């Protein structure tokens, strides 16, 4: 059934379709509508789940971890300051190998207070062990939340689904909502062996000495690596069931391209327009959308970008003292490749500033005309 939904309601519809059993959340703009709608669904009985209206995001994550450890599907959603408050617990969720799913609506970190789009909130959680997806439109929001549960429950890792504040969260788009029976078939109830159960008592998250801790971390990394092929397999099976296909990385017109633009999240949409228009003018340009950030799709990135002249990365995020985070990850992935492209790192759209097709075009044209990229990031659209 097609409906016109804002991104936040695409997320809550997906949570309902996944038959999540426990939700704990705390309000923060621009995420709040997700949990408002879920709260209504729980109230009316449309969704058979417990909704804990906790006193902080910190407790939201702590109780989701506990519910997941007890063996039920759990969900929460947050943004920026709420995500930062959860930080310690993010490590707990991944370290405990729990298949939680969380939506993070990408919002700028204070100060000054800013509720608008910026990816620095979730990217600064990249080392917590969560899988991270950055999605482009509202349909992809709904579909990715469903796929997130399927992936999380296979590799036993938590998944963060990230999308842009306002550009997606509050923007209405037509979204195809799959039928409940179809989702039930594709995403059946999940059973795990290791749960808190008084008939089979076990201890979870106990003290671990240096003789075993490292092995546990290694297993966590193995699960991340196992997620890489699984994301594409899950995308293929999702395509079979629902007719929409997703990959960890999407390459558009890259075969003959000499210059490749690299984007994530909703920035990909203006980028699509720009490269079509430039190709019509005979410029050999392609586009890569990085949908999966953790685990980082190193092989895909190298396969697509090696042999190209230039990769032009637009980052709506920043790691102070270094640069754009996607650009940095891409440089890291490519550094041992002989035929690696030059990597141009651009910063744009922080704190909700628009990334227009004109700005994208300006970036690409500047990169095409610059022989060698500077070592520092290039900030675009600053007030002179």
């Amino acid at each position: 059934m097609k409906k016109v939904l804002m991104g936040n309601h695409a997320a809550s519809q997906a949570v309902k379709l996944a038959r999540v059993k426990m939700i704990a959340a705390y309000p923060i703009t621009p995420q709040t509508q997700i949990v408002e709608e879920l709260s209504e669904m729980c109230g009316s009985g449309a969704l058979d789940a417990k909704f804990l209206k906790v006193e902080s995001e910190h407790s939201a994550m702590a109780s989701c971890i506990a519910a997941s450890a007890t063996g039920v599907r759990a969900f929460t959603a947050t943004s920026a300051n709420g995500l930062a408050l959860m930080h310690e617990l993010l490590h707990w969720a991944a370290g405990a190998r729990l298949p939680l799913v969380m939506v993070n609506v990408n919002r700028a970190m204070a100060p000054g207070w800013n509720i608008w789009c910026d990816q620095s909130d979730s990217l600064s959680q990249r080392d917590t062990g969560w899988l991270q997806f950055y999605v482009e439109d509202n349909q992809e929001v709904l579909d990715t939340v469903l796929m997130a549960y399927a992936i999380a429950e296979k590799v036993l890792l938590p998944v963060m689904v990230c999308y842009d504040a306002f550009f997606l969260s509050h923007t209405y788009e037509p979204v195809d909502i799959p039928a409940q029976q179809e989702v039930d078939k594709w995403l059946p109830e999940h059973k795990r062996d290791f749960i808190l159960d008084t008939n089979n008592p076990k201890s979870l998250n106990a003290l671990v000495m240096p003789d075993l801790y490292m092995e546990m971390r290694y297993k966590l990394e193995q699960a991340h690596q196992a997620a890489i092929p699984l994301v594409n397999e899950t995308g293929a099976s999702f395509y079979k069931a629902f007719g929409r296909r997703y990959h960890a990385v999407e390459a558009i017109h890259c075969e003959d391209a000499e210059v490749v633009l690299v984007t994530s999240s909703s920035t990909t949409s203006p980028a699509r327009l720009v490269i079509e228009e430039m190709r019509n003018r005979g410029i050999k340009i392609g586009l890569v959308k990085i949908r999966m950030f953790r685990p980082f799709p190193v092989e895909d990135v190298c396969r697509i970008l090696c042999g190209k002249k230039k990769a032009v990365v637009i980052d709506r995020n920043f790691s102070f003292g270094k640069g754009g985070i996607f650009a940095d990850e891409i440089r890291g992935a490519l550094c041992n490749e002989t035929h690696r492209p030059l990597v141009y790192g651009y910063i744009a759209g922080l704190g909700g500033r628009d990334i227009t097709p004109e700005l994208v075009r300006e970036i690409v044209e500047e990169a095409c005309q610059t022989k060698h990229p500077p070592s520092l990031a290039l900030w675009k659209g600053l007030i002179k």
Partner: protein
Amino acid sequence: MRNDYPHDELLQSGHLACQGCGGTMTMRHCLKALGPDTICIIPACCWTIISGNFPYSALTVPVLHTAFETTAAAASGVRAALDMQGKPNTTVLGFAGDGGTFDIGLQSLSGAAERNEDIIYICYDNEAYMNTGIQRSSATPELAWTTTTPETRPKLGPKKNMIQILAAHKAPYCATANVAWPEDLIRKVKRAAGIRGTKFIHVLSPCPPGWKISSEMSIEIARLATHSKVFPIYEVINGEEYHINIAPKNVPVKDYLRAQGRFRHLSNEDIQHIQTRIDYEWKILLQREMTESFQKNMP
């Protein structure tokens, strides 16, 4: 010990506690009272160590170790999941130290109590951060020594009154208890298990290295705490109805303080000051006990 003392041991030998650890006795009695259909949530505290390292566990009930500040939030999550699984009768036991309860975990405990989550929260109070080596908490008694409140600058101000805080949430059941009275503790834990909503039990649990006492003195000193009225034993029903459960023998506070190395530096004036405070608090408790509950005030 009376015959109805439960004989099942849900805490096994092989745990890693110090000799005379009050927190360990508290856990043992609580689990005896609750039985095996219990899920235990433990934050960072001495019990992180006591329960044993992976893959061992001295507890024969399921345990969720959780972040220091999250006991009540984690307990709420386990409760929610159990309810969704059709297991409303499984007991959820949050078991935290004084630091994890009075300080860093107070926010999540307040949240859970305000929502009236169906959990039992037990605070084993050894009156300092013992796991990290005896630093003061807001449960540390007035003028006591800890590694962050040296003799030259002992802890100022009285111990935070947690029962009052929980009673102000109108939690259906709050109680203090003392490891020196296991029957009373067990009765309270059993009573708590029969009540829906948030139950809070605050158990005085001596720590021999932290209190600078010898381990065989643990119970004797705990008993002095109650007999000197330093740690009165009472219940609060619905935040309103007070019942004192153990009649103190009016031992001078001095006897309690002088028995412990952590109070060695106190002058006679210091002790008099503490005695005055304790007498005042006891008077207030007696007044509260005499005040009739809201229910009884209803026409």
